[in-house]
């Protein structure tokens, strides 16, 4: 509605030739400069919010599925890459086993050398068996992770988190539909910042990009990383089998296992955030809004001043000032759910960092 009024004002301001002091003149006499000021900021706020929240609805509606998604280790995409590496690695294994067997049988080495060769033989044979069964093994790991994740997520109502995400980033339920997607906590800050100083509006645009796009990128990245590590799993096993390359192989195997089981950590974090929201008492760590009467006056003042600046006496503002008043009067930020949204993105990566070096 604001954008329609702004466009209308621009058209009228351009087409009307000479302002006068009658009511009509006052209505139509606003200079193009002020109107473009208003229009530029309104368009920027609308476009930036719509652009950054483009796929937010998809992420919110499918959060559980996005967490549970795993590539199919027996599917054609993964199997193609896996077969390629298997075709390279298996002959290497055979060659190494043959050479080690030849050394053990025909060459009289030192007792320590023979002991090393024997243990190497064992790990090579075990490695060969594992990589031959790698599609089944990886599929079993992914399924186990998905089943555990589903069981954990079933312990609490995930919609508490999605509703909270809507309040912080999306469209709160108690706002009228035509303004809902622009009245969330961060949206309010973005609007206020944009109309204070547009450069400040560039900074308030960042949380949307980081959180919403970050979540989307995170889910895609996890899927892509699991696909990659599944494909090069035979190489990881080969490197883990040899003493010289054991460190590299260990890191690769750890990454494979951690990226697969990351969804369990995601589920734990979501459950923890749900429990925190349920357990925290109302008003705890909450920045309250302005008093209701002040919200009304401020809304009229904000919208009326802007409308007055372009000489439309409050008509356009009346439609939105109750919404602005309601939003200014409701709590600005509830810190626990607010921090929970960002923890959803960062906590799994933080926990992963702790689990480094768990393989022997």
């Amino acid at each position, binding site marked *: 509605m604001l954008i329609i009024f702004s466009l209308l004002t621009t058209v009228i301001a351009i087409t009307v030739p000479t302002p006068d002091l009658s009511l009509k003149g006052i209505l139509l006499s606003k200079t193009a400069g002020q109107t473009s000021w208003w229009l530029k900021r309104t368009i920027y706020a609308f476009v930036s919010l719509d652009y950054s929240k483009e796929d937010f609805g998809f992420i919110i509606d499918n959060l559980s599925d996005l967490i549970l998604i795993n590539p199919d280790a027996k599917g054609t995409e993964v199997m193609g890459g896996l077969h390629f590496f298997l075709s390279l690695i298996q002959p290497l294994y055979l060659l190494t086993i043959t050479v080690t067997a030849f050394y053990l049988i025909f060459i009289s080495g030192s007792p320590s050398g023979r002991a090393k060769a024997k243990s190497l033989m064992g790990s090579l044979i075990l490695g060969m068996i594992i990589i031959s069964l790698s599609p089944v093994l990886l599929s079993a790991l992914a399924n186990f992770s998905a089943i555990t994740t589903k069981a954990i997520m079933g312990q609490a109502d995930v919609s508490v988190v999605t509703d909270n995400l809507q309040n912080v980033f999306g469209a709160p339920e108690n706002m009228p539909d035509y303004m809902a997607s622009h009245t969330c906590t961060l949206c309010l800050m973005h609007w206020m910042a944009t109309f204070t100083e547009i450069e400040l509006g560039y900074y308030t645009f960042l949380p949307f990009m980081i959180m919403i796009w970050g979540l989307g990128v995170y889910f895609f990245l996890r899927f892509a990383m699991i696909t990659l590590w599944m494909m090069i799993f035979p190489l990881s096993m080969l490197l883990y089998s040899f003493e010289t390359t054991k460190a590299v192989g260990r890191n690769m195997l750890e990454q494979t296992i951690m990226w697969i089981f990351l969804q369990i950590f995601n589920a734990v974090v979501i459950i923890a955030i749900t429990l925190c929201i349920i357990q925290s008492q109302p008003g705890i760590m909450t920045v309250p809004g302005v008093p209701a009467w002040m919200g009304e006056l401020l809304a009229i003042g904000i919208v009326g001043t802007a409308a007055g600046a372009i000489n439309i006496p409050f008509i356009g503002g009346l439609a939105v000032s109750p919404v602005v008043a309601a939003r200014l009067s409701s709590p600005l930020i509830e810190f626990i759910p607010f921090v929970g949204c960002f923890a959803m993105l960062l906590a799994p990566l933080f926990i992963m960092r702790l689990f480094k070096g*768990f393989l022997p």
Partner: protein
Amino acid sequence: MKNKIFSLLAIALLLTPFLPIPSAHATLIETAKKQFNPFNKDWSDIRHYLGDENFEHARLILYLLVLGIYTWNITSDILLNLNTYILMNPSPMEPSVLNVMNFFIFNLQVVFILAIAATALYIVFSSPAPKKRAKAKSMLGRLVMGMLLVSISPYIMKLFFDLSSGMTGTILNQADSSVAATEYTDIIWKLYFPQVLIIVLPMAGHSLEYNAHHVIKHELPNMQPEYFGNLQTGTANEQRDLVVEELLGQGAPEAIIADDADQIMNDQRAFISSNTKKMIQSKVWGTIEYGMRYMKIAPHPEQTFAYLMAEIAMIFALYGFLALRYIMLMIWVILFPLSLFLSSFELTRGLGRNMIEQTVFWTILQIFYAVSIDVIAVGFSILPKGYDYFGVGLNYTGGMFFISFFSLAAAILLMLTPILVLMLSQRLTQMDLG
């Protein structure tokens, strides 16, 4: 609708930092009546109020007002509830939390039973070397102990939290804990006040320009011609003073207008002509406009960004970290049975130990917050007189624009407590006490 219009006018008038111009020919009340008279067909004054320069001013004043209200709410909350937030721990015995923990406990008990059974069968039915038997026996003991601990893990967590919050409460009672909150909130306000100053001071200067503009455009045409009589007969100084007084009101920066007024006064022929008023209007206004533009008096909100970012960083450093602690603690409470399980096996002992360390770190963080608060309180109580005068800003403004180094250090200590504890815990881990 009419009431809302009047309310808006009241707000716009109250919020703009200048009042209707008092002049020799209209009192403040008369001018105000003229402004608020809805039947006054001359809407140009009101349009000036709401448009152009005053739109900028009204917008910025509204922004400062809203920012001030939110700052007030946040600082009030910190002053009242900081201790509550520090003492806040999740409750493991809450049914919803217990439900999730029981999910892990029941599944891990099954694994424990299988492991115990496998180890017992190994000890009973196979004949391993004495070393391996001893290892299996100690593992059996560890598994049994682990299973017991996992089964009572919610109670262990509750006990641990009660211990930690009890210690924290005791430490907080040792000194006046409101000192830290007061100093912290003072710093937040002292980051807010300069923002007001940076925006409002140039507005006052800009208002001066508006004063002159308003008088020249609207008051001067209404002045009686004989008012300019003195210009024809008085001395150059009297003429100059009269122009300055009439055009800009008392307290005007005469230096701006004086030189050009002198120049104008030298051309006395212009003042005798019938175009006197127009000449003054165009020459003097042009001079003022040129002068003001040259002085570049206008509010620049982008100059307040540093203070705004610092204010937001201070708020999030305290609130954000306390909220993060609550959430992380909840995660580790849920994973505590798994931590105990992983600690029971040789292969995963390092992993389990890491998880337990994190649980301990996030729990005892509240103790260190309490210690920081007490340190700040005691530090300020023993601070020698006069040391509080060292700082940044203007100390003779009642403290509104002055931040003492000790207050700043106290705020930074409170903000960085989690980092200090993290570094300490990492150092302890490297020492390998276990």
